[in-house]
């Protein structure tokens, strides 16, 4: 198991996804570390295959699930559409296949597309408000 590779994946991918989901850097780092710990407890040898798509899919799935649970627990912004944000990020930023995103967020492919457009539009409208356009 290469510590540097796992560390890079947690830094670059997991934290980025978690932070986009919950919009809180401390909670996001905790989410990423907790998911890694869950892998260490259950299947530590799998971490040596960190570059495989299957493992990455499992990481994102667990981060999304944990964020959904902690959303109520930690009372993060209740207006955040977690499944929409997850769908948008994984589809638009990581360009994950729709079928996989649908599995992660437990939605249909049509719902994913609708969510992606909706989150995209909401980001654009927020940005235009901020920029005073």
């Amino acid at each position, binding site marked *: 198991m290469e*510590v540097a590779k796992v*560390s890079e994946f947690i830094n670059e991918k997991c934290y980025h996804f978690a*932070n986009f989901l919950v919009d809180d*850097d401390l909670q996001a*780092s905790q989410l990423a570390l907790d998911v890694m710990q869950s892998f*260490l407890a259950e299947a*530590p040898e799998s971490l040596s295959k960190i570059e495989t798509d299957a493992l990455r899919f499992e990481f994102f799935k667990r981060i999304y699930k944990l964020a959904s649970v902690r959303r109520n627990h930690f009372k993060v912004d209740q207006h955040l559409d977690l499944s929409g944000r997850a769908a948008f990020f994984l589809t638009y930023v990581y360009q994950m296949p729709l079928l996989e995103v649908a599995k992660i967020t437990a939605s249909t492919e049509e719902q994913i597309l609708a969510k992606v457009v909706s989150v*995209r539009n909401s*980001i654009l409208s927020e940005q235009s408000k901020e920029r005073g356009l």
Partner: protein
Amino acid sequence: MENHCVHERTIGSNLLKNSNLSDSLRVHISDCVHCQKKYDLICHENSIIKEEVERYRASIDMKDHLTREVSLQLESYLEEVEKVAKFKKRYSFGSLKENIVSFGKGLTDPISLFILFVIAAFYLIQI
């Protein structure tokens, strides 16, 4: 009523999915005013979104913190694995050595020899 081009939708769909445009569509965009307008608008929107998404990346401090935590957890796990492996190896070899020594000691001890003799005698009488 505003005029539209039939390719606008394809351009929009491709750019929304963040996928690349085909060469033929690129040539068309350079010739069509409507498509050019649409293309510029979506590119502008995409750049805004990219900026927004980049905001969620880990800061240098956070990267340091995460790297430290991950290294700490993984190294402690690897140390633990190594310890267990060493212990297992030592335990299996140690117990074998211990048993052989205790068996040897038992043969030299007069009380044990006497007990062994009595048991053997009892067994032989029964036969």
